[in-house]
Structures are given as structure tokens and as C-alpha cells.
């Protein structure tokens, strides 16, 4: 892997010849609202989400479970349609499955009858030639450290490896917007840290816009340029969640996990999430 990504330095984009690499695009949420069910059983999950994600930034979306983090992500991918408002990527609004996005889900969601290699190839954009696709998959396998396991089936590798393959599948799409739905949530602590480092490497090499849903405050502080916290506004608990806080995270990445400033932000964010930050 070190051949692909030298540690600490950001390899220029030209370091990957033949990689078209869609330019990162901004994402704008306007008056987004999502209600599930109808009539008496209707319940609003998200309301009045207005936000602009800058092109190429890493945005972490924090919030307690059930607050609509995933719904926001799914609306961006076009997997879900908001009841009101819109999501705009670049200049065009999202309508249906959006090919400019790529998703890595909380579970790897790999096809069990395909090899890792074939699974990653599913992410390739339409119209990729076979030769180009093959080269790209090989490069991604190398990038996520799975070159030796290209021909393995998902059930023959560990959870962390499957999750890396899932990330590679998303990257194969050359996404303008990379959507990560708690992709490291189910991993053990050590693997999680490795995956976070990997994500930073990838982002350095290809600075796409990243929306990262997480419930892990430390992860958000490590990875994000900005953090939004979703939650219910005091006095409007009956309504859906909305953005109750936006935080700029200072300092270049990788950040010192022991920094005092981050520790302060950590307890303040935990407080926003309704946990005693002490």
C-alpha cells in the first residue's frame, strides 16, 4: 500500500494516471422534510434541513439513533424521496438513484456469490471498458490492502476486510459525493482506527465530498472538516429532528487523538447529544 500512498504526504491527483476522477461537488439541502406513514400514525423524522456541504469537504453527521441521519444520506443518494424540500448536487437536484453518489453502508452488503474483485467491479460507473475496469479494480484492491484476497468470497474474509471491499466498491464509482453510513460502526476499535486512516488517505488522494454518518463523536472529530448535529429542538420534541448545531473542526488531519482542544469539543458535542460530557 505504501507504494500507492506515501504516508503523511498528499499524492497529487496526477499520481493516478488514467483515473478520470469526477470533481467533487457541493451538496445543498433545502427545506428537507421526511415523514413516514400517513394519518394518525404519521411521524416526522426530519424537518427543515437547510445546509450546504462544500465541495471536497468531509462532513460528519452526528445524532442519536433514530434522528434521521441515515434518511438524510439516503435522500442524497436518491434511495429515498423527501416529502418536501430538495437535495441538490452541484447544479442539478437529486431525482431517483443518483449516479454521482456512491454509498458504503453500515454492513458491507457484498454479493456472497461473487469474489471481492467482482463485488468491487459492481461499483464501476456505466460505460467503463473492461480493460479500464479491471485495472481500476486492481488498483482499488491494492489501495484497501486486499490485493491478495481478490479472488476470495466475502464469507471467506473478516468483517473489516469485507468493509474495506465495500469502501472500494464505492470508490470504484469515482463519486462526486461519497456517502458513508456508519461504515465503521460494526468494527472492533483497532480495525476502526485503521479504516479511518484509510479513509483519510483516500480523501487526500481524491478529495471528493464526503458525508459521513456516525454516532461516534471521536470519529467525527478525527475525520471531519465540519460536524452537524441532528436532534430535536427544545420545545418542539413532537416534531422531527433538524440541524441543531454546526461545528467547524480546527486543525489539519491527521489530528492528535489526545489534543486538549478536541477533548473540549468532544464534551461539548456529547452535551448536544444529550450525554453528560464531563
Amino acid at each position, binding site marked *: 500500500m505504501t507504494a500507492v500512498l506515501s504516508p503523511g504526504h498528499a499524492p497529487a491527483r496526477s499520481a493516478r494516471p488514467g483515473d478520470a476522477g469526477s470533481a467533487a461537488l457541493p451538496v445543498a439541502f433545502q427545506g428537507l422534510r421526511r415523514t413516514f406513514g400517513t394519518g394518525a400514525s404519521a411521524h416526522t423524522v426530519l424537518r427543515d434541513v437547510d445546509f450546504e456541504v462544500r465541495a471536497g469537504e468531509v462532513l460528519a453527521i452526528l445524532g442519536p439513533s433514530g434522528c434521521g441521519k441515515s434518511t438524510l444520506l439516503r435522500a442524497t443518494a436518491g434511495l429515498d424521496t423527501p416529502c418536501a424540500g430538495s437535495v441538490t448536487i452541484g447544479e442539478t437536484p437529486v431525482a431517483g*438513484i443518483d449516479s454521482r453518489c456512491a454509498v458504503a453502508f453500515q454492513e458491507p*452488503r457484498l454479493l456472497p*456469490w461473487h469474489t471481492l474483485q467482482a463485488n468491487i467491479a459492481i461499483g464501476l460507473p456505466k460505460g467503463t471498458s473492461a480493460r479500464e475496469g479491471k485495472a481500476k479494480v486492481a488498483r482499488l484492491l491494492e489501495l484497501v*490492502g*486486499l490485493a491478495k484476497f481478490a479472488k476470495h468470497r466475502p464469507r471467506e474474509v*473478516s468483517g*473489516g476486510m469485507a468493509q*474495506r471491499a465495500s469502501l472500494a466498491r464505492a470508490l470504484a464509482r469515482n463519486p462526486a459525493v461519497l456517502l458513508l453510513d456508519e461504515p465503521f460502526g460494526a468494527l472492533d476499535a483497532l480495525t476502526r482506527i*485503521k479504516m479511518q486512516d*484509510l479513509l483519510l488517505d483516500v480523501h487526500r488522494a481524491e478529495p471528493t465530498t464526503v458525508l459521513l454518518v456516525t454516532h461516534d463523536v471521536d470519529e467525527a472529530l478525527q475525520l471531519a472538516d465540519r460536524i452537524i448535529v441532528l436532534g430535536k429542538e427544545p420545545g418542539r420534541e413532537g416534531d422531527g429532528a433538524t440541524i441543531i448545531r454546526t461545528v467547524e473542526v480546527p486543525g489539519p488531519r491527521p489530528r492528535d487523538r489526545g489534543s486538549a482542544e478536541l477533548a473540549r469539543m468532544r464534551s461539548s458535542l456529547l452535551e448536544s447529544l444529550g450525554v453528560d460530557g464531563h
Partner: protein
Amino acid sequence: MLDLDKQAPVRAPQDRSPASGRSALLATGWARLLLGLLLPAALVLAWQLSTAAGLFSVVQLPPPAMVFEAAVDLLQRGELARHVAISTQRVLLGFAFGAALGLAFGALVGLSKVADVLLAPTIGALRAVPSLAWVPLLILWMKIGEDSKVTLIMIGAFFPVFTTVSLALRHVDKNLVEAGRAFGLKGLKLLTTVQLPAVVPSVFSGLRLALAQAWLFLVAAELIASSMGLGFLLTDSQNNGRTDRLLLAIVLLAVIGKITDAVLGIAEKWAVKRWA
């Protein structure tokens, strides 16, 4: 930079330690085959002993040797091969058509809510019709020929495949389907990339049920109107009081049915390994 490769891949351990000698013996193909033949051999022995002791009259239960002689006799006259061949042909044709239709309709009903609402009640009602009830109607419509028999077997083979495929498609892992959609797969491409491979194992269990059903319906078809086939051999022997041939037909149905099922079972094993 990252020591990602050091994580050991999790492989399903092959549980064939030498300590478990009994399970090792049971795992080998030949041992299984031989052990599986133990009970039939014991039955034949009991049959031989009981007839030799005169417990039954020859009309009630002829000794195994007589059944064997009946087989040799029919074989020499060329009738046995003809009976077996025509029955097998009917089963295979009916099974192939029925399974293909079951697959098509099962896919339709399993994937489309509209098709489910429109078709499922009718198909469910048709399934409730007992096999023999179709026979007079089919004979009236198609005369006593191959068509009516193959059609009856087709009906028998259709339902198990239809039911298993439509149910399995409805229960394909929603997460996998969503992941497929997220990466731009839809329609036929989504069906062939995600949904069909996911149901391959259930399709095979449906096919095995359908094949067993096809043999059941074969006898129903041949018992009533035929001049050839194992079902015909059964009725003909009954009318002539040839219990030896009657038993022969039953043994042949059991053996051939088991062989075709075993062949399909091998295909199933391969498919489950490949797709599951």
C-alpha cells in the same frame, strides 16, 4: 503504512478431525451409499424369508426371485425398456415444461406486487385441485395421447417451483437489493445480478420437490389411460393378477425416482456451493 493484511481471514473450518471417526465414515460417499442400502437389503431378506416360510400366498406376495424372473422375462420381450423409457420421457418433459413455467410465474409473482395481487389467488386455487381431478378434463380436451399425460405431469411440477421461487424472491435480503440499486442496477440487470443468484438454492429445492411430484402425477396419468409405461404396467398387472409384475413396477418407480432425485441433488449441492 497500515498493516491491514495481518488480519487473518475467517475461514469456515473443515470439521474433519481424525478424532471424530464415526462422522468421517459417514462423510465419505461410498460408505454412505452402502449404509443406505442396508435397510433395502434387510427388507428383501425379510421378504424372502416370509415367502419361503409360506406366510403369504404367491398371489398375495410372490418371492423376490419371481419378481426378478418377471423382470428378466419382460426385459427379454423388450417391454420393460419400453415401459421405463416412455415413463421417464413423460416425466422429464412434463418436469421441464412445468419447472420452466413455475420459474417464470414464480419470478413474476415474487417480484411484482401487481402480479401477486392479480395471479396469486387463482394459482393458489388451482393448486388446491387434486391431481386426479384433472385427468377426465385433460383426456376430453387432448384425447388419450402423450399431450394429456405430459400436461398433467407439467401441472404437478409447476406448483412446487412456483411456490418456492415466488416466496424466495420476496425474501431476498433487502439490503443487498438496495445496495444493487444504489450502484445503478435496475430491472432485468438487478434481477440477474442480485435477485436470481440469491434464490438459486431455493430454486433447486423447489426443483427437487417438483421432480418427486412429477413421478406422482405420472402414475396418476398412466393408471387411467395408457397402453405403455410403468403406471400401465401397474393396472395391467392388477387386472391379470400378476402380483410379481406389480411389485416390479413399484420397485422400478422407487429406484428410478430415487436416481433422478440423486442426480438433481448433486446439481443442487454444486449450485448451493457456488451461489450461497
